[in-house]
């Protein structure tokens, strides 16, 4: 079977889910004839028509709110944020209206909000964000953030079928750089389950999205240069977190490094550290360490962006520190 990119895998999932369920429809800015800023929805309007692939005005509040209203009525909207950064513009609608709908009012709100996220692309402060923390912090929402093409497809299908609102982060650095062969048939990856991206004995790196690939690169070099056996856990879903998988790797290696591209303070690494601390304290041979972005709005010039964001060398340095603890 042919390899397809992370981006094509997402598109394939959208095509298949629209074919499977007529209640699935797309809503967003420039997603129709144009196929979206990154062409993720390319071809969908030609196939499924304007009724099911709807170009909206530039109004994230309206787009998310309208999706919620449609979801109440039994539809399965898939909303595109042209850049995930613009979730901020719909923050009230998402965290106050959508996230609480089922709980406060028994209103089903099955919808997906997806879009390109993340840095390493010279996008500057408003086209490179990783705003997952604010949504992981919101009860009622689910958050997924795939690192591989296979997971991108399988998690998108799971997200569309989920009975609650799922925020689907698509790392734009991976869109065309990462490829994979899709498993045959109806490939669905369950939400809430992490993946062991690499088996190891000496220490564990817990991460997700683009930094999974940096962690794997680091693991290779640590194996080659230091003879260290590094396990890499790809969380895949950030809310709900897969505590079992996290605790299992801690118990296995007793040394944990958490890596994320998001800024440090208030990023998800803190939450994971707290959970490990609460549940696996006795299994820790060293403190849980974090490699993250600096607490700085992401600058645009290559030298600056590269400094602010975590790099493979940083992971290697941190892993060595941890191994030597």
């Amino acid at each position, binding site marked *: 079977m042919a390899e397809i990119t992370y981006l094509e895998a997402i598109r394939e999932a959208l095509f298949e889910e629209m074919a499977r369920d007529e209640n699935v429809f797309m809503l967003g800015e420039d997603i129709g004839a144009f196929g979206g800023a990154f062409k993720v929805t390319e071809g969908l309007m030609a196939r499924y028509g304007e009724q099911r692939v709807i170009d909206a005005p530039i109004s994230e*509040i309206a*787009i998310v709110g309208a999706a919620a209203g449609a979801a109440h009525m039994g539809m399965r909207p898939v909303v595109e944020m042209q850049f995930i950064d613009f979730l901020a513009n719909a923050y009230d*609608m998402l965290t106050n*209206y959508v996230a609480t709908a089922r709980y406060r009012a028994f209103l*089903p709100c099955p919808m997906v909000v997806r879009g390109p996220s993340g840095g390493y692309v010279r996008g500057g402060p408003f086209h490179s964000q990783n705003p997952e923390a604010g949504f992981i912090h919101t009860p009622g929402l689910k958050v997924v953030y795939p690192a591989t093409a296979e997971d991108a497809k399988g998690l998108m299908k799971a997200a569309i079928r989920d*009975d609650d609102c799922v925020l689907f982060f698509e790392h734009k650095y991976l869109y065309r750089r990462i490829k994979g062969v899709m498993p045959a048939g109806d490939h669905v990856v369950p939400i809430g389950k992490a993946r062991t991206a690499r088996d190891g004995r000496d220490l564990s790196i817990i991460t997700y999205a683009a930094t999974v690939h940096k962690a794997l690169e680091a693991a290779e070099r640590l194996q080659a240069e230091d003879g260290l056996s590094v396990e890499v856990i790809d969380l895949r879903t950030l809310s709900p977190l897969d505590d079992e998988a996290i605790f299992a790797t801690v118990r296995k290696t007793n040394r944990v490094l958490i890596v994320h591209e998001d800024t440090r303070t208030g990023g998800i690494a803190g939450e994971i550290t707290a959970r490990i601390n609460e549940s696996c304290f006795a299994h820790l041979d060293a403190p849980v360490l974090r490699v993250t972005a600096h607490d700085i709005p992401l600058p645009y010039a290559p030298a600056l962006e590269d400094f602010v964001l975590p790099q493979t060398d940083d992971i290697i340095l941190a892993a060595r520190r941890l191994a030597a603890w």
Partner: protein
Amino acid sequence: MARGVAKRRATLGAQGQHLGEALSLERKLELYYWMRLTRTLEERLVALYRQTKVVGGLFRSLGQEADAVGSCYALESRDVMSPLIRNMGAMLVKGATPVEILKQYMARGDSPTRGRELNIHFGDIGEAGRTRGFLGQISPLGDMVPVMAGVTMTFKMRGEDRVGLVYVGDGATSTGAFHEGINFAAVQRLPLVVIVENNGYAYSTPTSKQTAAAQFVDKAIGYGVYGEQVDGNDVLAVYDCTRRAVDRARAGEGVSLLEFMTYRRKGHAEHDNQSYVPAGEIERWAEENDPIDRFVRVLLDREKVGQDALDAIDARIVREIDAATDVAEASPLPQPLDALLGVYADPPAEHPLWFREGADVSSLGRERPEGWGTWDPSKGGAR
């Protein structure tokens, strides 16, 4: 204002209030019933509030009953309406029961939201016939406009003959959500009626500090939608104006923005002493422009209804509310563990945190309401 009305009427061609006049006497008496029920139920809530049986704030629509009742009365039962805090009358017309509302205000465990949300922040939407078609709002103002755009979008997608109606206050028109929602609906030509209830104030803020426009209906042209302004305290005119907009929506002519001129005679909530209101203003509206008094005169003078007939309705309403109050007061309070249920479809319940290990979770997982769940279609309920 007259100028404005004239201009709108002229440019947008409204046609007086004959649709309201044309209602049968029986239906006019229904309008009276809903308005009186609204007022009497609110008075009962005030009594319960004073007895501290109401949890949280109490919001009144005194003097706005015609606006809520007359407009919602223009909808069919299959249509969907989203109210604001002062649209209890619309909720009642759409089938919400006094028992539900009383239980909500008293935060009872078997209230529509199981004690999770306040006052009339509850609803019942979905399939026509199986649901009553009202969608409770959330506190952040304006948010229901985009949401109702989405609800009506499904009507259009499915070719259902259903219409949506959403209320916003004069203050809520200033929100980004209102703007994005009505613009989205207008572009999509959705069957949605947006009603701006201009009651003169947003909390303490007079309309003059909310907009520089001569009138809210002037926003219609800027959204490319049909606009009309009407005397919100004339229940027949309100019905007429809303009905026209609803018919347009049904006919595929898209969104309407209606401005109802009314007045908020009580404070924002019971606690508000209205110190900011010019002396005499409230009294003037109460004496000269009470929507129920006005409609009573129409019924007595023009429709030749006997006072005894109205008294009979009033008496029936008191009986209904007495009965509803007894049911509500006898209803159970929520159990602490109920708090853990239904944040997500899956998992169906959250776990108590470790420092609540003691908590008996055996009772959990029972309650899995399909919908709002407190209303039994078989038993029915108003309309």
